[in-house]
């Protein structure tokens, strides 16, 4: 069994390498590549320019704490706001559609059109949605919100209906036999049973949307991406790096928040709602035990 598994992995790797070899026309290009990257980072990017966290010269900062008038804070906050609104709207939209797309909740003749709709929404990347909405409603955060919402519906919708299809069938069967309505089954059986996964997907999508705020900002849909795009055009790569580090920190914070929220619905979790302090203490204890 184990040997068969190793052979299968070996065969897959070999196939991947043969395909890669077919795609790459000149392996010689790899030589000196790392050196180029090293030169670029040392000369243009490093050290990061933290002036992006200082107040801008215009408009005049009226806040006592200068950080709140900085490009980093303003851009990041706009990105977080866009990502938050888009994630919530997209999550609710996806919940509505995915409940009709799951094969174990609906007959295939109903599920198939909803699956097709979700595939269509997902097949356009958020960048293309952003370009479409910038054309339709002009530059700004609203275009970003709409672009991310549409992409979130398609992406989360697929994850959600696959989660429903993987849930244990016995509680669903009982509900169907008892004659509960589709909304009652969905809200009272499916959501509680899959809550942990749905919450995890929601937080992942929020994190994804924050990261993608950088991309859709480049086409004028608002957020920190607008500033990154500006600094890229001005060849100020050290400022770009500082903003990328800021995004990285925010992504880590979102991951911690996700861990905390999911502890509400895990099997072993306490029924009482965890407090921030107890949660952080748990993390510290875990760190100590691993040391």
């Amino acid at each position, binding site marked *: 069994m184990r040997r068969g598994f190793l052979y299968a992995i070996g065969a897959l790797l070999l196939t991947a390498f043969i395909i890669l070899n077919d795609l790459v026309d000149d392996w010689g290009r790899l030589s000196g590549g790392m050196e180029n990257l090293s030169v670029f980072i040392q000369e243009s990017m490093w050290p990061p320019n933290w002036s992006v966290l200082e107040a801008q010269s215009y408009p005049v900062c009226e806040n006592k704490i200068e950080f709140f008038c900085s490009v980093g804070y303003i851009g990041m906050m706009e990105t977080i706001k866009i990502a938050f609104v888009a994630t919530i709207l997209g999550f609710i939209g996806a919940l509505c559609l995915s409940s009709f797309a799951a094969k174990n909740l609906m007959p295939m003749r109903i599920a198939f059109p909803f699956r097709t709709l979700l595939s269509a929404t997902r097949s356009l990347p958020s960048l293309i949605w952003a370009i479409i909405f910038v054309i339709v409603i002009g530059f700004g955060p609203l275009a970003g919100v709409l672009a991310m919402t549409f992409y979130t519906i398609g992406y989360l919708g697929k994850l959600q209906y696959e989660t429903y299809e993987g849930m244990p069938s016995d509680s669903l069967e*009982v509900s169907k036999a*008892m004659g509960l309505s589709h909304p009652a089954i969905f809200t009272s059986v499916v959501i509680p049973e899959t809550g942990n996964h749905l919450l995890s997907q929601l937080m992942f999508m929020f994190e994804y949307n924050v990261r993608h705020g950088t991309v859709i900002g480049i086409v004028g849909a608002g957020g920190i991406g607008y500033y990154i795009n500006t600094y890229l055009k001005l060849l100020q790569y050290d400022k770009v790096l500082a903003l990328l580090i800021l995004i990285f920190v925010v992504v880590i914070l979102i991951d911690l928040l996700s861990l905390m929220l999911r502890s509400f619905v895990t099997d072993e979790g306490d029924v009482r709602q965890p407090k921030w302090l107890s949660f952080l203490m748990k993390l510290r204890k875990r760190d100590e035990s691993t040391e």
Partner: protein
Amino acid sequence: MSELLLKLTNLNVGFSEDLVQDVSLEVRSGEIIAVLGQSGIGKTTLIRTIAGLVQPRQGSVELNLPEHGGLGYIPQRLGLVRHASVYHNVNLGARASLPWFKGSREERARRVTSAIAAMGLEEKTLEPIRRLSGGQLRRVATARALAQQPKLLLADEFLSELDHTTVDVVVDAVKTLTDDGHSLVMVEHHEENVEMIATRIWLIENQQLIDMTIDEWHKKMEEEE
């Protein structure tokens, strides 16, 4: 005159091949039927076919039940919502027979609390299902059926894993339903439980279902001994 609740006509049940063939039977209100037979002979598949969860291979299942919550079902694995409380699970039964447009929230709450009390689970009302023992879980599933008050209840080994005292409590609670004109079709392995509750026996042997009275069943058992 007792009311016809279920009519099986020339029914064959199974998956790739027939497990039970040519079943033609009726269930009337107030009856308690025990489905007996060896493991893997098709008892659960028969119950699931009646519940509409498995397509009959041939023949028909006709249910003469109220539109909302007329049929109750307790499967072997109970089908409880693991990430929810006892109250939430029992309330599903009440919601099946009293949807929002048919009954008030207070009426549903009354049914739920009295079903939980009948099963002696008052202290566990807000406890999540995953924290309960096997016997407590069976009582929750029974409480869900009590709150639903289905005209026909299908139960698959719902008395297993229960101690004698709890079996008495559950049987008494189910009998209040059947005394009221509701019916129960249950898969059961323990003869003492069958003796205690059943009014009719469906014995599955060699792909055939034999419908018999308790006395006929006793006689058959004596002959076999």
